[in-house]
């Protein structure tokens, strides 16, 4: 089975700080392979362990994607296609068209796996869009997947329950973090990754309309209106005042 995995590199949002004056995020934080991209890749590796075949990692980004690609190959990707852009924000419609073009050029892809959304922009659009462009069905938010020949059985997350669906290959799947525990590559895998084939493509060569979708006007931390009090340093004072507040409110 030939599996394509779309991965994304994102800012480590856990480390993002906010400039208190402008309320804008400060971007001097490391980049990393998005968590759900790891889950997508892990699922591909597990499937390949059963069915055999090949895993192609596809990534689109403006800057410094070297590390994310190396990590994806170390985990178990067999080859990588990097789509280079000039940087700046790209609407998901553009990202999806580019990834779909690469998948089409690979010709024999049976299954495409993505994370269901990325931690930075959280649009959740790439998987279903790629499915539409390729003309294949999609199942999103999958937390359990079984492969029987050319049919997949997926347990999918609904808000208040789960749903079991069956889908024929070729298709697109997007996964949630419950689906697996991504592996950490060993040192020899990290070293071995260097020898794996990596091809670079230019976004502008793929023949895609780059003026689509959405423009960002600004990114700012929301103003917090509800918060009456925030304690930052002294846990002793915090504990004392919280308890006196609970007493005042008649809770204890």
């Amino acid at each position: 089975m030939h599996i394509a995995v779309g991965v994304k590199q994102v800012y480590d949002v856990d480390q993002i700080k906010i400039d208190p004056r402008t309320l804008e995020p400060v971007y001097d934080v490391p980049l990393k392979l998005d968590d759900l991209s790891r889950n997508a890749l892990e699922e591909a590796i597990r499937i390949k362990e059963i069915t055999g075949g090949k895993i192609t990692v596809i990534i689109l980004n403006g800057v410094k994607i070297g590390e994310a690609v190396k990590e994806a190959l170390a985990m178990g990707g067999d080859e990588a296609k990097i789509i280079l852009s000039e940087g700046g924000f790209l609407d998901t419609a553009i990202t999806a068209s580019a990834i779909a073009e690469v998948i089409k050029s690979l010709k024999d892809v049976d299954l495409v796996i993505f994370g269901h959304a990325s931690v930075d922009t959280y649009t959740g659009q790439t998987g279903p869009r790629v499915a539409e462009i390729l003309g294949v069905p999609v199942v999103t938010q999958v937390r359990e997947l079984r492969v029987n020949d050319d049919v997949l059985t997926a347990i999918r997350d609904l808000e208040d329950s789960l749903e079991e669906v069956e889908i024929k290959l070729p298709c697109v799947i997007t996964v949630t973090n419950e689906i697996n525990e991504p592996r950490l590559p060993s040192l020899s895998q990290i070293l071995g990754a260097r020898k794996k084939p990596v091809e670079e493509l230019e976004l502008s060569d793929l023949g895609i309309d780059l003026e689509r979708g959405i423009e960002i006007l600004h990114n700012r931390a929301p103003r917090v209106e509800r918060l009456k009090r925030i304690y930052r340093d002294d846990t002793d004072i915090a504990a004392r005042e919280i308890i006196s507040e609970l007493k005042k409110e008649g809770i204890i």
Partner: protein
Amino acid sequence: MKKILVVAEHRKGEIRPVTFEMLNLSSSIPGETTCVILGKDIGGMAEEISKKADRVIMVQHDSLENFNSELYWVALEEIIKEENPDIIALGHTAMGMELAPFISERIDAPLATDIVKIEEVNGKIHVHKYVFSNKILAELELRDSDTYVITIRQGEFKEEIDDKNGEIEERSFTPPGSISKRFIEYVEPEEVGVDISKADIIVSVGRGIEDEGNIELAEELAEALNGVVAGSRPVIDSGWLPKERQVGISGKTVKPKLYLALGISGAFQHIVGMKDSELIIAINRDPEAPIFQVAHYGVVGDIFDVVPELIERLKKG
């Protein structure tokens, strides 16, 4: 006046609340709402929806009983073409998130997902949505287009509109000959034990609790406060607390007098389930954690320092 086409969401014979929240959009963007409902035996639901929509289009067929993005699209395509709406709204839900990108791609319309606000500014559509793990609120402008597609975050568009009395039209549907996707069944988690939705005081733990053994600390605090312990989804998925203790979109909605969030980041799926609590206190070591956006009191600190301190003081009385 904009033409707003709302795709209704229902499951097991019940309309999902997000449907009515989408119909409330006409209070943000002056417009006329047409609600499309697809399914089987949906007459009663269409009736209910018509009280809040200007028009209802109902499509009934056995194959539409449960959501299937493949079939739903076929049923919607014709309606979208005929109606030519300015805005197509879906929920930012398991259903909407699977369908909206598909529609956007098909009709080549800009799509904004998970929005919490929409407005028209100088003839342009602007939307607000959270990015970077809910820490940042982005304002986005959609490029000019005949049609826009949006998915709305649940629990955000609550400003109710006046009653309407929309007409219900029925349309027919012929499913395509071959389909590659099939619904099998709903898988329900079993439920027994404590009903957290009735508790007055909840001590809720998130991934910050680190380890199953540390749940005891939360239990001790809950006992001192006369409350119960609940948790975020990762805690439940790890098996540290039973499923019926989960707070959030795929768990319970709670409105206790006190909700104490320990090491919970505040993902929207969690917030939806607890934001109407009377008093929310959050303890988290990340000062930018989005849980502080809904908290009344926040402590930036380590739960393993603050919680023992609280327990000690409570015990002293």
